[in-house]
């Protein structure tokens, strides 16, 4: 026993000596690198899940920030400071912000809605740091803005693909596994846009929504998809949830599907049509570049043009490449709709509906004046009128459009 002890003590002492030796050397070289670095602009980020996730919401944001920094020539090893797994608790978010501020961050991104209070306060307390909050609605006119994307535009395009598929297989039932329903405008607007896209192609299509009441739970996502296929006979499964489980179910059951967040074709090669995807790097690059080039953090809000709500036009949202599983008309129709949205000529939630017709090779689109109705028969937008406000799409939309049926 004594021998063992002395052995342990001796090895500990040796290790300690070794580490101290290389410690001083390394910290010196760090200091040099810092002084002579290409850029001393430091980016901070606060994540809701782990920075080492390999799918899902946090993953998408982390990829976006890394890609943006690489494009701007910033070192993601030294110039990116991250606090991850930070729960939506004001005190813990505040601590995370203080730690990132203490590390010298010039801009701090927060990706989860519940960070909103802490971000709003921190923006006042640290006027020299730029704060950007995803999915929120608060801002000041100096160093604090919020950002999100018109994902509903991509949803509409995915809806077109689903609509054509439903025509091809002769099954008007389309399923939709959703984290939440009308409780959140984010999920609600996505479902509505998808349904409008599907019905622009197949007016008889019905979108069956199965809600799982949580943002992510692989088992529930799976079960919800199975129910949509077995009970409601759906031939296409779309989704607004974190994992690819609904697509995997579609593959297993021999039906089709539209993923979300990232291209899910590899998860369900025989089922996947296309997925609405986020290109967060578009915003992150814009925000970091704006903050890098300005004299004062107080100019940020003006320089970046206020709060950010980019769409297809900016490249902030898109759909993943169409797979060979798609009906032949889908690609052309999607291109037509995309052009109308990119040019700003038309948008999804307006009193003008798109109607597609024609065979593959000669698909045409027609704009017809048609009131936007909810599924209880109320008129949301009169025929021919413009789109609902962005604030409605982002914040207060709490109804389903005609053709959507809530199944849970």
């Amino acid at each position: 026993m004594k021998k063992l002890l002395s052995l342990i003590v001796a090895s500990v002492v040796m290790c300690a000596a070794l580490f101290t030796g290389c410690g001083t050397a390394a910290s010196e070289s760090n200091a040099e690198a810092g002084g002579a670095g290409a850029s001393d602009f430091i980016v901070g980020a606060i994540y809701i899940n782990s920075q080492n996730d390999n799918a899902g919401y946090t993953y998408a944001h982390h990829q976006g920030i890394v890609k943006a920094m690489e494009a701007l020539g910033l070192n993601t090893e030294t110039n990116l400071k991250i606090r991850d797994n930070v729960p939506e608790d004001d005190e813990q978010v505040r601590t995370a912000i203080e730690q990132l501020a203490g590390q010298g961050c010039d801009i701090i991104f927060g990706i989860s809605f519940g960070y909103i209070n802490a971000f709003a306060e921190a923006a006042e307390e640290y006027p020299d740091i730029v704060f950007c909050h995803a999915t929120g609605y608060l801002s000041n006119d100096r160093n604090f803005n919020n950002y999100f994307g018109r994902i509903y535009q991509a949803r509409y395009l995915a809806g077109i693909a689903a609509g054509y598929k439903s025509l091809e297989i002769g099954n008007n039932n389309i399923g939709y596994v959703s984290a939440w329903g009308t409780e959140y405008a984010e999920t609600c607007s996505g479902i509505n846009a998808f349904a409008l896209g599907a019905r622009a192609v197949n007016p008889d299509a019905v979108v069956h929504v199965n809600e799982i009441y949580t943002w992510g739970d692989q088992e529930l996502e799976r079960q919800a998809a199975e129910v949509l296929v077995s009970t409601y006979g759906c031939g296409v499964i779309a989704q607004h949830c974190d994992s690819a489980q609904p697509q995997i179910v579609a593959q297993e059951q021999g039906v089709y599907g539209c993923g979300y967040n990232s291209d899910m074709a590899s998860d369900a090669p025989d089922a996947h049509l296309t997925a609405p995807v986020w290109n967060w790097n578009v915003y992150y690059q814009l925000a970091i570049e704006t903050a890098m080039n300005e004299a004062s953090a107080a100019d940020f809000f003006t320089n970046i043009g206020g709060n950010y709500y980019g769409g297809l036009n900016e490249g902030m949202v898109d759909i993943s490449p169409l797979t060979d599983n798609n009906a032949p008309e889908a690609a052309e129709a999607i291109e037509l709709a995309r052009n109308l949205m990119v040019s700003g000529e038309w948008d999804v939630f307006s009193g003008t509906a798109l109607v597609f017709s024609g065979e593959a090779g000669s698909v045409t689109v027609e704009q017809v004046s048609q009131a936007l109705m909810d599924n209880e028969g109320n008129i949301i937008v009169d025929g021919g009128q413009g789109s609902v406000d962005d604030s409605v799409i982002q914040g207060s939309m709490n109804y389903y459009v005609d053709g959507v049926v809530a199944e849970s």
Partner: protein
Amino acid sequence: MRLKIIRRKETRIVNVILLYVIGIAVSFVLGGIFLSSLGINPVVYYRDMLTIGLIGNYYPAKSIEGLLKLFVPLLITSLALSLAFKMKFWNIGGEGEFITGAIFASWVAFKLGDSMPRIVVILLMCIAAFISAGLIGFITAHLKVKFNTNETLVTLMLNYIMLYVIKYIGETKADWNFFLRTDSERPVFARFPENAVMQGITIGNFKLLYSVLASIAIAVIVYFYLKRTKQGYEIAVVGDSVNTARYAGMNVYKITVRTIFLSAALIGLAGAFAAATSGTISTDITNNVGWTGVIVAWLSRLSVPVIGVVSLLISVLQYGCQAASASYSQIDHNFADLMQGLFMFSILAAGFFSHFKIVRTGGKNDD
């Protein structure tokens, strides 16, 4: 050959210290191996961790404040739990009692924060938390003494009940729900009115919150309560043997209920402090102190001064790991947790070996 664990006959203080030194050293070396495998210099990492990232920090005062915000709830909760543990009453309901206190404190904050002076609001918040959480303790103690229920199960289940209560409040948008922001379409907890937010003494850039002073005062009071008062003595006797207490003519029901009320009420008070400091509540407001407090109480062998030291060390470890995970891109929260666990495990193992030792016994079927 067989190995057998036996209790040490005597524990020499030198041996105990040596064991802890070895335990900590082993965790440093193990952690060092993990860190090196990620290409991080362990010495620099440990320096950043143990100095809670103060070196080269732009806002050092904020780091100290952040550390104290972890320390205060942990200290009070550990003290409160040790009251119950001294009596061999296994209160593992710290989480639930903490949440109860936080909910009732914020109820007062939202309802009275605008109409009363700050000192009154904060005091009322503390009283509301103290009584509400204390009542939870009263219920478990009453059930235990009257019906001999298992307090471990009861307190454990109450944790989940309270967690779901606060989740319900936090996720339900309704007219009655004054806990939430009214301008938000999504449910999110509102900020307290300014008068319900904990203040402190400003020293330069540094703000020493009154809750820090209060928690130290509570530690001193608990120390004297246990050491010098009749009630403290009664707790010790009941903890040693309920029958002895009965023969001595003590009212076991009264002592148990009073002590557990106090234990739970103090944890509720910690919840009120956390809510007032944060200026709001959340489902994650406890920061797991109900669990960490159990570890602290046991590591400290229920000694009040040691609880103070251990709470501080664990807070340093927690804050330091967070700070380090922010400054190294390779380190994520999970890794920081792993490091924390490594340290805790080594220290607990050292504690174990200071009481027990493994000996070899020559068995006949030795092969």
